[in-house]
Structure formats: C-alpha cells, structure tokens
C-alpha cells in the first residue's frame, strides 16, 4: 500500500545568491511560508570538544570511543524536535506548490527549479495514537528527514540539513564533559528527559522538560534523532586529525544510519550524550510491500529529528553532497 507517488525529478540549480545578506548569529524563528508554523533556532557557537565517552562511564558501549578531540563550526540548531504539524506540511505538499513558492530572494540560497521529492502518504496512522498537536514527528526514514530539510531550504532560502553526529553530540553536551548534559547522575534525568521510566510508553509534547545548558529541549530522550552520518561502529578510529575537523561519514548504504539521544523507549543510560545507535531493516518490518517505502518506517515510533543551519552556508557543490539520494529498499 506504500504506492509510490511518483514525482518527476526536476533538475535543480542552487546558487549562492549575489545579494545574500548576513544574518546576525542570534536566536530566530523561521516562519514556514504559507503556514502558521515556525521553527525556533538557537545559535550554537562552534568549538572543539572531547567527543565520545570515557571507559569508566556507566552504560558505555565500545562504539563510543576512544574519545577524540573534534572541532565543529558554528550553526543554529532547532530548539525543539520537528513536530507533526511542521512535518505534515511537507507530507501534504503538492509538487506544483513547491515550484511556485520557490522564489525567495531574501535568503542565502535560491533553488530555481527544484528537485524536492515528496513523500507518499502513509497508509496507517504513523503517530500510533500517541498524539499529534505539539508532539514530535516520528517514523520517517533518514531519506525523508533529509528531503524535509531540502524542502524547507527551498521554501525559505536558508540552508537547512540534519546535524552530523559530531554536531549533535557537541550540542547535546552544551559545554559539559559529563555523561548527561546536566551531569553524571542518572537520578536527575526526570527533570530533563522522557525515558522508559517516566514516559508511560509514549512520546510527549516537545519542550515539556527542562532544556540543556544551551537552551535545547529534548536532546536526550523523547524521540531519538536522525543525524546525517552512516553509523560506523569504529567511528572514532576513523576520525582523522586532531582535532578532527567537522567529521561526517556520508551514507553509502541504507543501513545502518546513525540516530542519537535515545528515546521514550530507552533506559536512562541509553540517553547519554555519547550513546550511539544505528538504524536497522527491522524498523520497516511491517511494510508489506517490496520495494519497501522510501519514506516511512513502520516500526520506529522512537525516531524523529531536528534540523540545523550552518552559520556559513557551504558552497553549491558541497550542498549537493548533502542531499543524499534515495536508495531502494529491497
């Protein structure tokens, strides 16, 4: 029933607009055009941090180290996880509207004719009855989350993408070196996060716990969040340079891709800043069709995402690299 809603792929050109204005590096609200939705963005000053967890950390897995110094550039990050209301604008979008709307001369980038592919409608209720108004969107594939970022870029003229694992962990830590953003004691987690012990088997409205030190909500728990990295078990061995400069392992296979932060289904120790998880084929196991949906996971009600926007948008060629192509799921 995941019948493809075939969308013609248009060639698209994206270029740095000559008169791009430089936005102050301060918090702002991105209004999604032609909607009542906006996304709140928080500036995260770049820096160098110690990524991964030390050997003695409670609940640590071997894929979290050895710790390495990592440098990330400045970016804005979504203050909250993307909600269903924000995501559904994309799900219900019509391709002709995207093409008509893309005329933003205000932003940093412009998409002249676009190549945004749009999701097929889900044939079941993807919220699994856990709520929609103000609740985080879930069950989208990594590709769908990337296409959402591309769609939002086309809509706004500002370059949005998923965070890398390094950016995500840097933002989660909010300047601390402890297991959790708030310290090492998991006892305090209920103040900051929805986890297995307090979630009552479901996700919760965004921002209903305390934020971390940099004002980001639900980084730990509620829903785990997609990053734009291939999940590599030996991530830390593969890092080059010290500090490693803005590392990113571009996905070359459909599985596993990296999610971070743990979720409402997980024990507190799986919500640690360094905790890493790779996606699996079984996240789509109740998709009855073959090829399986490019857009929806049928069995990952714990996975959502938030977006970032680099302070300095990359070059045109680099942006192209970030729009990872769909890989057939057979």
């Amino acid at each position, binding site marked *: 029933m995941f019948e493809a809603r075939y969308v013609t792929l248009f060639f698209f050109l994206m270029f740095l607009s000559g008169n791009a204005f430089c936005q102050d590096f301060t918090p702002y609200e991105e209004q999604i055009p032609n909607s009542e939705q906006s996304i709140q963005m928080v500036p995260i000053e770049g820096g160098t941090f110690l990524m991964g967890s030390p050997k003695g950390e409670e609940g640590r897995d071997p894929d979290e180290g050895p710790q390495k110094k990592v440098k990330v550039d400045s970016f804005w990050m979504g203050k909250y996880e993307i909600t269903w209301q924000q995501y559904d604008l994309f799900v219900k979008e019509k391709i002709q509207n995207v093409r008509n709307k893309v005329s933003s001369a205000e932003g940093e980038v412009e998409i002249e004719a676009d190549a945004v592919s749009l999701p097929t409608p889900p044939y079941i209720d993807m919220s699994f009855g856990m709520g929609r108004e103000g609740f985080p969107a879930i069950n989208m594939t990594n590709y769908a989350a990337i296409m959402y970022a591309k769609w939002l870029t086309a809509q706004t003229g500002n370059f949005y993408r998923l965070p890398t694992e390094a950016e995500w962990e840097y933002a989660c830590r909010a300047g601390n070196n402890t297991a959790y953003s708030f310290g090492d004691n998991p006892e305090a987690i209920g103040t900051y996060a929805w986890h297995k012990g307090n979630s009552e088997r479901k996700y919760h409205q965004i921002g209903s716990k305390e934020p971390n030190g940099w004002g980001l909500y639900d980084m730990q728990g509620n829903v785990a969040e997609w990053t734009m990295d291939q999940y590599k078990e030996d991530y830390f061995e593969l890092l080059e340079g010290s500090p490693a400069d803005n590392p990113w392992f571009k996905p070359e296979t459909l*599985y596993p891709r990296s999610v971070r932060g743990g979720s409402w289904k997980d024990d507190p120790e799986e919500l640690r800043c360094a905790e890493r998880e790779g996606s*699996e084929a079984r996240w789509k196991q109740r998709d009855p069709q073959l090829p399986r949906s490019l857009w929806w996971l049928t069995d990952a009600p714990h996975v959502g995402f938030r977006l970032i926007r680099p302070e300095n948008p990359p070059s045109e060629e680099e942006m192209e690299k970030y729009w990872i192509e769909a890989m*057939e799921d057979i």
Partner: protein
Amino acid sequence: MAQQNDDTKNGMSRKDFVRNASLAAGGVFLSTFPAMGGQRNKSNEMLKIALIGCGGRGTGAANQALTADSGNQLVAMADAFRDRLDDCYETLSKRYGDTEQLNVPEDHKFTGFDAYKKAIQLADVVILATPPGFRPVHFEEAVNADKHVFMEKPLATDVPGIHKILEAGKLAEQKNLNVVVGLQRHYQNSYREVSKRVHGGEIGSIVGGQVYWNSDGVWVRPREDGQTEMEYQMRNWYYFNWLCGDHILEQHIHNIDVANWMIGEYPASAQGMGGREVRNGKEHGQIFDHHFVEFTYPSGAVIASQCRHQEGTMNRVSEFFQTTEGTIDTAGDRGIITSWDGETLYDHNADGDINPYQQEHNELFAAIRNGEVINDTERSAKSTLTAIMGRMATYSGDVISWEDAMNGSKKLVPDALSWDSEPPVTPDENGNYPVPVPGVTDVLT
C-alpha cells in the same frame, strides 16, 4: 545493493546483538533472523511457488515466501499487466538473482486475465495477491489443482464470491491443503497474546468496542491515452467495487476481523452511514470516503466501526474493547489489557517480535514441510463477509442481518473478462461513475 539491505545482516544492531548474546535462546535468533528460521526440513524437495498478482504486495509476499524456507523456489508469475510483472521480477532479482530460489524462465511469465491458470499448474504453492475481486476464482482454481495457498485479504468483493471461497475452503480441508490468509494480525505476537488472555477469561466478556482505520487514503492512478475502460479500471482498481470492494473492506477488514476474533462471534446485524465528502472526483470511481457502522453481535456486544480516507483529519488505526471487567487496547504492536480499577493486567513487550508478514509464511511453509494443516479460509471469509455487510449497511441505509448478507445474490464480478469486454460499471456521459445512494441503493439483489 541486495546485500546491504539484507534482513539477516541487519536484523539486529551490533549493540543489540552484544546485549542479547547472553540470552541467545533459539527464539531470539528465530525472531530476529527470519531467513535462518526456515531451514529445509523433512523433505529436501524444492517447493515450487507461483505468484499471481505482481504488485507491491505480491512482490512483498513472494519475498517472504522465499525468505521463509531456503527450499522454496519461485517458478511462475502471472499478472494482468506485463509491466507490473517485469517490475516485480526485477525487484526480486536484486535480492534473489544469484540464487536458485528465483527461477522463472520467460515461458513461465504469464499475462492477461487467464494468466493465473497457467501459472498455478506449475507450482506446489500459490500466492494470490491480485485485487480481491479475482480471489474467489483464483482460489477455486488453486484448490481444484491441489495447491497449497497463501492469499491476501479480503477474499472477495461480493457475496457470491464468499460462497465460492467457503466451498473451495471446505474442499481444501478435505484435501489437507494449507491455506494461510494475509490477515496478519493473527500471526502477530501482540494480538496473539492478547487474544489468548481474552479467550482465557482473564478480562471477562466483551460488551462493546471501537475499531478504526482512519487515514489519508491511498494512491490514484490517472487515466492514460489509449486505455480501454477495462484497462483503466484494472490500473485504478481501488476505486471500483467489483475489483476492490471499497476501503471498508480492503483495509478496514483488519480491524473488523480483530473484533470478530476477540469477541469470538460474527455480527448478527449491522447498520450505519457513509458517503463521499471530499474524495469525490471522477478518478475516485464509486467508493465512499467514510463509513460508520454499528455491528451488533449475538452476545449483545456492540462494535462501532469507523473508516475514513480524508486528508488532514485525525488518523487512527486501532481497536478498543470494553469488557465486563476492563478494557483492551490494541494497535500497531501495542497490546494492553487493563482492569476497571486501573491495574495493568497485560502490556505486550514487542521487542524482538518477528514481522507478522514473515511469520505467516514461516508457519505456512513449516506446516507444508511437516505435514500439518493450517486453514484460515472460513474465519477469513466470514470476516470478509462482515466488512461487506458493513458496506451493505452504509450503501443502503438499511439494517442488514447476517442472514440477509449471507443470502445476498448481488454479483459484482462478471464471469468472463477480457480487455475488450465492458466492465460491470461504466461512466456516464460526463465521466462520472454510479455512486451508492442510501435509501435508494439495493445492495442485496
């Protein structure tokens, strides 16, 4: 490509694997490594499979059949359309192209309305996954030819089709043939565990409930130049009742079937309402976009059934039941039983549960290999009839009893079909198709 997506490799993350290694009972591996669950046993013979209906679901079912048992081999394919067959074959090739499990030579690929007959002859086991209007004729042919069957729900779109299915089901029983039906909740742990407890009397008897399939709807296939009316309807089949039976049947049957299963009866009567409020274009054929039905069971239990295909409205696919002692809540892989004083009596943990679409094939092929017999026909036919009864109620506005429905003689599917023959419904001069009108439409004769 096939390798990177292989369920066996990715069925468990490295981390899960490490964590579960110490618990490595057979069950853990069986449930997370479906491909390893189906070792050839008893007989070393290859089981030959024919796929009838090569759309996305047929392709999925063929994949599950081949995954269930390494001794299974796809040997024949049939579809009305050659391009659908080719897409299916190409998809399966990516996964099984270098194995002996995919062995469909050109002269075992059949297209057209009669394609099924030729494909069925070549197999031991037949997968029936065309639009449901064809199911009765295909099932009858398969059973007459002594084949085991996996068939998708629903089993028919009209009552004459139900009778054909029930008769063929009895014949299958006499012949000890296995028949598994794709009402896959019956093969899903969360539902099985809840059912076991409900039927074990742990929460009293069901007095009422609500079942839902409210979603945004499904695809529409546009009319193309040069198509005959028959070709168009066959492509855009969801919107024509002789092929699809309306979404109360095609999708919502799952939830209605859960009600029948949990209550342990079939409804005595149905009454309801429905219509086409927003999905009402020519391309939407003749089906409704919403139905609301009250099913009353012989025990007195009443089930409210909702199904809706309207974008931008509340989505819900689930079942709730109220019993003399508490409540039952099932949806997705959730299965919760709660007493009226708020005590959780059961809360299903679905971690590591096997994919129910895989499980139905694992059990089918294990039964064939071990000489056991599964026959889902009767209960699935009766749940199909229950959904048809609901449709009769919303289309007519009448109270429809089980006997009324069972005795209904209205036939939607013609006996003989060809690309040039006129379909049983045709558009008027403006391109609109006949739509049922409550208070006017006769659904029984």
